[in-house]
C-alpha cells in the first residue's frame, strides 16, 4: 500500500471512524482502524460489533494493500500534523507516515483479523436531507435511557411508511414522538418498516451526519440498518454507518397518549422555560415543581420549595381552557421537552400543555405544529 492524501482529508476520515473503535478485552482488534486502499480509494473502517462505520476518499495511489492500526495513536498523531500532503506506506504490517518534517512508523495488526462489516441489501431505501433527519432525530434521542430489563425502550423507535416517518423514544417517565413527512418519490420501500435503533448508534448518526449538506440514504434489512452519504465528485458512498437493530416489539405507546384533555394551556414557551428554570433553583431532591392552573384568572402559577433553601412562587399569564388543575412535575423532564420544542423556532413560539388530572400524563406541543409531541408523567402530588 502506498498513497498520498491531504492531511485535512485524512483527519476528517479518521475522526469519523475513530469514535466507535473501543477498548475490548475479548477482542483487542476492535481498538484498531482498518485502512485499506483499493482502486484509487482509501477506505477507513471501525466497529464495536454493534455499529460499523466506513469512510472513503479518492487518493493518489501507487500500490494497493491493507492494514489495521490502533485508532488512538493514529488519530492523536494525525491531528497534530500540519495541513500538507501525507504519504502513507505499508511495510510488513508497519504503517509509515510521512508529512513534511515528520516521519513515523506505527505498528499494525493483521487486517485479516478485522471483523467484516455486515452487508445490508440496498433494495429498500429512503432518501432525505441529512440535516433535517438529524435535527428531528435529535429531538427524541436523549429521551431513551438504557434499560437492561426492557431492551426495547433503550433504543429509538422508527416507523417508516410511504409518506411518513415516525421516531419515538421513552424512558417510561416521558415520551417524545416526532413525525416527519417524506417526499413520495424519495421513498422506495415495498412495505412498512418498524424497527428499533440502539441509542448509541442514533447519537453517532447525529454526530456524523448532523452538519452534512446533501442527502442521506437509509437502507433497511431485517437485522441491520445502513445510513449512507455519497461522495460529491463520483458516485460512490462517502460514509456508511451500519447498525444492528434491537430485537423485540416496541411498546404500543399510542395507547398512553391521552385522546382528550381536561385543561388546556397556551403560553409563550421562552417565558415558561425561564420561570421553570427559576423555580428549579428551589426544588427539592426529587426536582419537584408544582403547577397550579387557574382558568378563571387565565394564569398558571409555579411553586417550588426545599426545606433547606426556601420556597419560590411565580405566575405567568396564559390562555387556559377547561378545569382548574394542580400538578407536579420533575422540572428536568419538563425542560427537556420544552427545549426540544423551542429549538429551531425563530419567532416567539407558543407551547400548548394539555392535562387530564394530576396523575395522568401531560402533553406538550408547539402551537400550530402537530409533528412533535412530548408526553411527561407527573410526580404524585402531595
Amino acid at each position: 500500500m502506498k498513497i498520498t492524501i491531504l492531511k485535512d482529508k485524512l483527519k476528517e476520515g479518521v475522526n469519523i471512524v475513530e469514535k466507535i473503535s473501543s477498548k475490548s478485552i475479548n477482542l483487542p482488534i476492535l481498538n484498531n482502524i482498518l485502512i485499506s486502499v483499493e482502486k484509487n480509494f482509501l477506505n477507513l473502517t471501525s466497529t464495536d460489533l454493534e455499529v460499523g462505520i466506513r469512510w472513503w476518499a479518492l487518493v493518489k495511489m501507487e500500490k494497493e494493500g491493507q492494514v489495521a492500526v490502533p485508532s488512538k495513536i493514529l488519530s492523536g498523531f494525525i491531528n497534530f500534523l500540519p495541513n500538507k500532503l501525507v504519504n502513507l506506506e505499508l511495510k510488513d504490517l508497519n504503517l509509515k507516515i510521512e508529512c513534511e518534517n515528520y516521519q513515523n512508523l506505527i505498528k499494525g495488526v493483521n487486517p485479516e483479523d478485522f471483523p467484516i462489516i455486515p452487508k445490508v441489501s440496498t433494495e429498500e431505501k429512503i432518501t432525505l436531507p441529512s440535516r433535517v433527519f438529524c435535527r428531528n432525530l435529535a429531538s427524541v434521542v436523549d429521551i431513551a435511557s438504557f434499560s437492561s430489563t426492557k431492551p426495547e425502550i433503550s433504543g429509538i423507535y422508527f416507523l417508516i411508511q410511504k409518506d411518513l416517518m415516525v421516531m419515538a423514544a421513552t424512558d417510561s417517565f416521558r415520551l417524545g414522538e416526532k413525525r416527519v413527512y417524506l417526499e413520495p418519490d424519495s421513498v422506495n420501500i415495498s412495505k412498512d418498516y418498524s424497527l428499533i435503533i440502539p441509542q448509541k448508534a442514533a447519537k453517532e448518526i447525529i454526530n456524523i451526519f448532523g452538519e452534512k449538506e446533501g442527502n442521506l440514504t437509509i437502507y433497511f434489512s431485517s437485522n441491520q440498518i445502513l445510513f449512507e452519504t455519497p461522495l460529491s465528485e463520483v458516485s460512490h458512498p462517502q460514509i456508511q454507518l451500519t447498525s444492528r437493530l434491537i430485537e423485540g416489539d416496541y411498546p404500543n405507546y399510542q395507547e398512553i397518549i391521552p385522546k382528550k384533555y381536561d385543561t388546556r394551556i397556551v403560553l409563550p414557551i421562552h417565558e415558561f422555560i425561564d420561570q421553570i428554570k427559576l423555580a428549579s433553583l428551589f426544588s427539592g431532591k426529587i426536582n419537584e415543581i408544582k403547577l397550579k392552573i387557574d382558568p378563571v384568572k387565565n394564569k398558571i402559577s409555579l411553586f417550588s420549595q426545599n426545606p433547606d433553601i426556601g420556597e419560590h412562587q411565580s405566575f405567568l399569564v396564559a390562555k387556559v381552557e377547561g378545569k382548574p388543575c394542580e400538578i407536579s412535575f420533575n422540572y428536568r423532564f419538563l425542560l427537556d421537552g420544552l427545549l426540544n420544542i423551542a429549538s429551531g423556532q425563530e419567532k416567539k413560539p407558543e407551547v400548548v400543555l394539555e392535562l387530564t388530572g394530576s396523575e395522568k400524563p401531560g402533553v406538550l406541543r408547539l402551537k400550530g405544529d402537530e409533528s412533535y409531541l412530548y408526553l411527561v408523567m407527573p410526580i404524585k402530588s402531595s
Partner: protein
Amino acid sequence: MNKEEIWQAVLAQIQLNISQANFATWFKDTSIASYKEGEITVSTPNSFAKEWLENKYGKIIFKILYNLDKEIKEVKYVIGKSELKVLKRPQISLPTAGQLEFEEFKIDKETNLNPRYMFENFVVGPFNELAHAAAWAVSKKPGLVYNPLFIYGGVGLGKTHLLQSIGNAVLKNFSQKKVNYIPAEKFTTGVVSSIKNHDVEGFKNKYQAIDVLILDDVQFLAGKEKTQEEFFHIFNALYENNKQIILSSDRPPKAIPALAERLRSRFEGGMIGDISYPDYETRIAILKTKSQEKGVAFPDEVLDYIASNIQRNIRELEGGLNRLVAYQKINNRTPNLDIAKSLLKTLFLSPNKVANHKKIIQTVAEFYDLKEKEIISSSRKKEVVKPRQVAMFLLREILKSSYPFIGRKFGGKDHTTAIHACEKIVRELENDEGLTNEIDLIKQRIFSA
C-alpha cells in the same frame, strides 16, 4: 448424532485451530438451527458473527462437518433470535420518589402480569390466611391442587395482588409455563371482537394453549351469555388437561347474578377462598410494611389513628399513608398525631363516605340484581322480600334510622314491618354464614362506592 452433538463436535475441534479470544467472540451463542438432506443451517447471534463465520471459518467448519458426516453437502448461516431473552424476566425497581411512570410499559405483554405484585410484598393476616395459603399452594403445583381456585372479597382488599402474585410465582418456578392474566371485561371484549372477525376458533385455541389462566373480576361475566358460553368451553378444555384456572370476584359464585348454572357449579368445584376485612393488627402491619417500603417511619399513635379510622379498604389505608409521606417529604419532619388528624380529616369525611338511605337501597338492589322500584314496591315475591328485609336492616344498622322512617322509605309500610324485618335478619345472621357474608359485601360496596 443429533444437531447438538454435531455442533459440540465442531466447537471442540475448532477450538484447537483458533485463538481463545476469537473463539469466545464468534462462537458464543451459535448452534445448528436445522439439518436435513445434507444441508446444515448454523444459527448465529448477530450479523457480525454471521459474516465472520461465513467468510473466515466457513471452510474449516465445512471440513469438520464433512469429516463427521459425509452426507453434508452444504452449510448455510442465518441470524437467529438470541434465546437469552426468554430467561430474562423484568426485575422490579420500586420508585424512590413519587415520580409516576407509564405503567403500561411494565406489564408483560405475553402474560399481562405486573411484576410489582409478588407474594413477598403481600401482607398475610387472619382475614386472608386461607386465600393466601391456597394461592401459595397453587403457585407451587399449578393444576394439581385446588383447581379452579376461586378468590372473592371486597374492593381494595388485595384480590388482584394475590392473583397476580400466583402468576408471577408460577413464572418464577416454572419458566416454561404459559401464564395469562386477564380481567373478565377484557375477556368479554376479546369474545366480541372474535365474533366480529369470525375467528372464535382462533380465540378459543389461544386460551386453550395456556397453562395457568387467571380471570379477574368474573362477576362482570354476569348477563353476558355468549361470553359465558365461550368461557365454559375454555374452562372445560383447560380443566380436563389439568391446567390451572384461577378466578376472582367481589362475591361468592352463588351470589353472582345471571351466571349460567353450569359455570357456577364449576366455579364452586375447586377451592373457594375469601378475603374479608383486615383486623386492626394486620392493618398496623400493612401500614408498617408500606412505610418501610417508602423509607419513612411514623410514630405508633399516628399509625394507630389511620388503622382505627380506615377499616374496610387497604387501598385507602395506603392513600392515607401517602398523604403523611408527602407531608414528611415537604416539611422534612414527621407529622405528629394532631397534624395527622388534620391531614387525614378530608379523607375520612369525603362526601361519598357518608351513606344515606338512597345509596343503601340502591346498593342492595344492585347486589341482588333487582330494580330499586321492586325493592320499594309492596311485592311479596320471595326474591324481593329478602333483599327488602336486608335493606331495612342496613338502614337500621348503619344509619340508626327509626322504624317509622324505614317504613316510610319502603312505600309507606308500617313500622312493625320494619321491626319484623330487622329482627328476622338479626336472627338469621346467627345461623346463616352465607347471609353474614352477603351483608358484609353489601356494606363494603356501600362504603367504597
